[in-house]
């Protein structure tokens, strides 16, 4: 460990989770996340871990619920349609205040959609991952190295706030190979957490991991308490990278795969003297509004570049309180915007067109 190795994004997700002390993986086959599960099935038996293929995504997320409720680090990975099936379980996990990691290697939708990269689960991940009032902390890596780093953070923050966390990857980041340095592996800490259901050993009152409460005032209070935690997360955990923003007239907001394309387009435009920069959200929830808001006065306009139909546009408008126009450029259905396309958008906006 510590040396640089060449790894496929999906395999790096798996190895990073193991390095973060996760020894419990449950999942169901789906493209383009397949390598995460395949890698886990190879590694877990060798290190005393659990790899179990559930009979469905529905079962798999509930296995995660059970394992995580017993106080161990547990995770699943899937691709877009699989998240829809897991929505029920994610809601119960959030409502039961159980930390776990869910990886979504996104593909094109809706429905069965396609198997090529997409970011069209942005709204689902950040706003509606299931029924009821709840959130997950959602990370959006843009490189294989960042994926590795964020997996560890996702587990740590999940434990800290007792919330489910998501790493929102996509078919491009999952399938590409890049050099990575893996972190020093942590020992899995499977000690019983004080809140967990792992047997009271006749030493305490029973723990109940539960999302049911039929008394409205109590259920409201529990939701209020959860949202006090969310307020702390919004205050403390927003993350973004700022790239050439200080003098920028145009600020691109893009995350994940589309931020890589945007960065190349910005570099090209800068050579032409166009003042363009980027705020790259690393957390999608909490949305890094602090970072974007800073440029609401200095920048003349904003552009989101997404692999969907503009799901992030409204979040940018809210972050800058609609002080400046926000344009959108995106491809969808598994298409990836090219540097040339984004560059042309920049040139167009620089000329005053919207």
């Amino acid at each position: 460990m510590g040396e640089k190795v060449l790894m496929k994004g999906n395999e790096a997700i798996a190895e990073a989770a193991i390095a973060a002390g996760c020894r419990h993986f449950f999942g169901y086959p789906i493209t383009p996340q397949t390598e995460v599960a395949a890698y886990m099935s190879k590694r877990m038996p060798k290190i005393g871990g659990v790899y179990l293929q559930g009979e469905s995504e529905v079962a798999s997320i509930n296995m995660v619920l059970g394992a995580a409720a017993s106080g161990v680090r547990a995770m699943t990975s899937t691709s877009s349609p699989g998240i829809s099936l897991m929505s029920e379980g994610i809601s119960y996990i959030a409502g039961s205040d159980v930390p776990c990691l869910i990886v979504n290697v996104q593909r094109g939708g809706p429905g069965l959609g396609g198997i090529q990269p997409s970011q069209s689960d942005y709204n689902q991940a950040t706003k509606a991952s299931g029924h009821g009032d709840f959130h997950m902390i959602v990370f959006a890596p843009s490189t294989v190295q960042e994926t590795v780093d964020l997996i560890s953070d996702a587990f740590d923050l999940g434990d800290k706030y007792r919330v489910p966390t998501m790493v929102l990857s996509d078919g491009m980041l999952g399938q590409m190979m890049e050099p990575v340095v893996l972190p020093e592996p942590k020992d899995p800490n499977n000690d019983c957490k004080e809140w967990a259901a792992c047997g009271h050993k006749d030493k305490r009152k029973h723990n109940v991991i539960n999302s049911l409460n039929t008394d409205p005032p109590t259920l409201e209070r529990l939701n209020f308490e959860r949202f006090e935690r969310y307020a702390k997360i919004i205050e403390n955990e927003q993350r973004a990278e700022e790239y050439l923003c200080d003098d920028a007239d145009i600020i691109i907001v893009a995350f994940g795969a589309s931020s890589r394309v945007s960065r190349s387009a910005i570099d090209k435009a800068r050579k032409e003297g166009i003042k363009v920069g980027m705020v790259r959200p690393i957390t999608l929830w909490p949305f890094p509004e602090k970072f974007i808001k800073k440029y609401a006065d200095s920048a003349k306009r904003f552009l989101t570049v997404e692999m969907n139909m503009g799901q992030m546009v409204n979040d940018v408008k809210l972050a800058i309180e609609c002080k400046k126009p926000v344009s959108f450029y995106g491809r969808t259905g598994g298409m990836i915007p090219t540097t040339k396309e984004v560059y042309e958008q920049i040139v167009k906006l620089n000329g005053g067109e919207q």
Partner: protein
Amino acid sequence: MKVMGEKPKALTDAPFHYCPGCTHGIVHRLVAEVIDELGIEGKTVGVASVGCSVYSYNYFACDMVQAPHGRAPAVATGVKRARPDNVVFTYQGDGDLAAIGAGETVHAAARGENIVAIFINNAIYGMTGGQMAPTTLPGQVTQTTPYGRDVKVAGNPIRVCEMLSSLDGVALAQRVTVDCVKNVKAAKKAIKKAFEYQLAGKGYCIIEVVSTCPTNWGMAPTDALQWLRDNMLPYYPLGVYKDIGEAKE
């Protein structure tokens, strides 16, 4: 003064919310007595399902996890795989286990998950007010089969123990009832065997308890018990459908 009987330690002091004559109370007590007798409360984790018995997490004194509707076998799988030294059981009704959770049940059984399923079959959805269950008898009137269950329209009931007994992962599949003292004793023996099998690592055990729902059947408790004898037991015969005995470790 000699104590002739007392509440099992594995039950909390919370009063049951169940309707008068409901057999959940008896089965809860049997499970708790078994947990006491085996001395395993401290390492037992129960999984409550959705339905009337969802509140079993208030009644069992061991650690409890509440599962989404039908998902108790998957949740129990997660707990047991993560904590193999714990004793893990699910407590599920017929809608939970044999309708919405049929997939999870069959696959947990097929994998031979080393868990115990306590299955309450009273042929009706209790909590939502008496709708057709996967085990509602042909011709039986419920809120959603107001003219009696017409199997040509609503399909046929599922005999769960018979179905699961064909799966290699099942160590014990036994159907019992709690309509009289003799059968209550037999039911307890079966439940105890299931927990002992888990302690010995034998695999998936299911104890189906043919039960009543006086409220939604629209009967007095004693009439409900007689209806169970006359109608349920002929369709769901008591007995051991699979028992691998001492064969497998």
